């Protein structure tokens, strides 16, 4: 074939509607996985983005012991460049360890040696284990208990089980649960809530903060903003959790069961109408109407102004960006723009969005970044702007990566997107 595989949105929507299986190239379990430079940090995070190793260190003053063969920890050197060099330790497994599991008897001793090495006592020790222990069926609760008994440092497992990527509790959902697992039940404060979902904070100018304040929420906790372990522990005072990323759902359920903190899920969307609707629903759920009209109207005005300034644009939209590539594509199509290509993963509840895309633009091509056929992808050069770091890799046109560590959300997100696009299009 020697050509990158794609399916049109129209064909894809038809497949979904008829409940037929997706084409093999769109099912990552049915083909080899291409970690192209376009999606490298997205699939296997190193210095950019958050993988299990970096995410597990979200607890302030924590350190990590990676218990694994050398191959699992090799790219951790990239994290050293962004300030993690003093927080990683490695207990390397040899060929006998990975078959017999004898390394399990050494972990507590290694933890004690790390404690001795440091000139401070870390708040917690994250023990990160990998595919080997997934297959050995290691009882990490027992291992962590032993470490705690030997060192007095609270010890938490972090499961970097790439093998379970498509299971009910994939590694990035598991690690979100791990980082909240040291919280203890305490008296909840009615004017306090947490935002769950990301390992970086939302932008300071996100309207969610003043909107929550307007209904009496004076304290909004985010793990990424916790500078001390004490601040981290105060997260369990929250009256409720707002879950902004579905990967945090397990963590929220855990907190509901163990700390009595209920949760409400919001979705990051870029359509002003959907954002508005979502805030109305949030107000209803909290029994306190939220007046977001100021932000909504300003965003609609900005959208109109952008449209007037750039009446006709053709986009290629990827998935390595802060948002769902399909949802952003739909927003752009609803604004009257053309989206020629989308590089994204079908699933995770985006089937309905695909159907909407197909109604507006049935010829939009949907590619799978992970398909080996992407090795042969060639840009046809008729794209005005590539949106997303992966799209930017494929096209040598004007590009906006839109994948900052600090997270956009709500009206702030769409405003930032339009401002950034204006900047790139200048």
């Amino acid at each position: 074939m020697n050509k990158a595989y794609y399916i049109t949105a129209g064909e894809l929507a038809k497949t979904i509607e008829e409940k037929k299986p997706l084409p093999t190239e769109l099912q990552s379990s049915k083909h080899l996985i291409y970690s192209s430079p376009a999606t490298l940090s997205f699939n296997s995070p190193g210095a950019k983005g958050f993988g299990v190793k970096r995410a597990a260190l979200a607890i302030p003053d924590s350190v990590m012991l990676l218990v694994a063969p050398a191959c699992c920890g090799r790219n951790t050197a990239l994290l050293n460049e962004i300030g993690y060099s003093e927080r990683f330790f490695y207990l390397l497994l040899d060929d006998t360890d990975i078959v017999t599991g004898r390394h399990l008897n050494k972990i507590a001793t290694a933890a004690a040696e790390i404690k001795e090495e440091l000139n401070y006592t870390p708040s917690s020790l994250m023990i990160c284990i990998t595919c080997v222990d997934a297959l050995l069926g290691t009882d990490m609760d027992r291992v962590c208990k032993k470490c705690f008994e030997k060192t007095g440092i609270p010890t938490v497992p972090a499961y970097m089980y790439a093998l379970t990527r498509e299971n009910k509790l994939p590694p990035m959902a598991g690690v979100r649960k791990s980082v909240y697992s040291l919280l203890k039940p305490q008296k909840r404060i009615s004017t306090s809530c947490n935002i769950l979902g990301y390992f970086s904070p939302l932008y300071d100018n996100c309207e969610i903060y003043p909107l929550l304040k307007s209904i009496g929420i004076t304290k909004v906790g985010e793990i990424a903003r916790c500078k001390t372990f004490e601040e981290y522990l105060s997260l369990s005072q929250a009256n409720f959790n707002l879950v902004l990323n579905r990967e945090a759902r397990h963590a929220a359920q855990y907190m509901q069961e163990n700390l009595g903190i209920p949760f409400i899920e919001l979705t990051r969307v870029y359509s002003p109408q959907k954002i508005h609707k979502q805030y109305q629903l949030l107000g209803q759920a909290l029994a306190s109407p939220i007046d977001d009209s100021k932000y909504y109207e300003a965003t609609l005005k900005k959208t109109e102004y952008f449209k007037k300034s750039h009446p006709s644009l053709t986009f290629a939209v990827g998935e390595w960006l802060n948002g769902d590539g399909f949802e952003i594509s739909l927003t752009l199509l609803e604004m009257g723009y053309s989206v020629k290509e989308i590089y994204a993963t079908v699933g995770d509840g985006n089937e309905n969005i695909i159907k909407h895309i197909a109604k507006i633009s049935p010829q939009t091509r949907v590619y799978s970044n992970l398909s080996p056929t992407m090795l042969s992808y060639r840009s046809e050069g008729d794209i005005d702007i590539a949106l997303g770091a992966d799209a930017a890799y494929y096209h040598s046109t004007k590009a906006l990566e839109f994948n900052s560590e600090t997270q956009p959300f709500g009206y702030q997100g769409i405003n930032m997107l339009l401002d950034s696009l204006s900047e790139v299009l200048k």
Partner: protein
Amino acid sequence: MKKLLKHISPFAPDISGACSVLYETGALTVVCDAGGCAGNVCGFDEPRWLKKKSPLFSAGLRDMDAILGRDDRLIEKLTLACKQTEPVFSAIVGTPVPAVIATDYKALERKAEEKTGIPCICINTDGTKHYDEGEEKAYYILFKKFAKEGTTPKGNKKAVLGATPLAASVSDKKELQKYLKEETVFFSLGSDISQYINVGDFSHITVVSPSGIKAAQYLKEKFGISYDIDYPFIPEHILEQIKNSKRTLAIHQDVYLKGLRKRGFEGDCATFFKRVQEDTMILKEEEDLKNIAYDYDVIIGDISLKKIIPDYKGSFIDLPHFGLSGRELKNEDP
């Protein structure tokens, strides 16, 4: 404690070594993993990944594939990818997952050849060894599988064996070619499988890292191709630094160190990798370096090792070693 790294990150594993040798051969390479091992290769250990495309993929194994030993699924995926990318041959590189479940590589190889109709090789790396072991296996298997039977050294071309980015710390052949007088073929750097097949074109091979020795011995025995072991690509500024080198310790891959000795280095040698010279000290743990470093006035080695000996007061001359730290020499060599 043994095998506990407190100051540095793990070295490049055997998986990366095998992939490095295969990278430019034209093989469709499948890292037999769930995704993380291939991610480490592409995202860290393979500096050519961003510059030169290669059909290197992850098997995308899932827990039930491993638990139930569903090799047939891997073969299906491999067959599909071969149809899509039309490689010359395929290669399956082992990781801890097949090591734990004791995958039968011979059977895998046979099945793959049957289904794809092209040659297949399996390299039984497991992610627990250093890169040089993976390279050694890959070189040896490639020559054994592809070098034409019965060829004799009729040509007079020269070749270099063992110069991968991991061992030589450069990702472009030109960086090494400039040290040589005549045009030379570098296996695993800028040459494809045809060079392995037509090995009879070569009259002599220079082995520049320990990983190439086993294959060179095989080629000598089987085809009568002579070889020497040397590292002729030592930058001028390093040669300058080793002039008065009695109380100096040099740390690198051992053929590099042999090259230093040949060019006047009089100090001691140490390596974390395979040994070639009898008197080279083997370093296995961070502690091993701590125990000897303070006896020397000068250390030549990758600067990342200095983290192990923060109190070292002598002079530390940086000599990047990609297989150790992931740093290329290109930008460092003045």
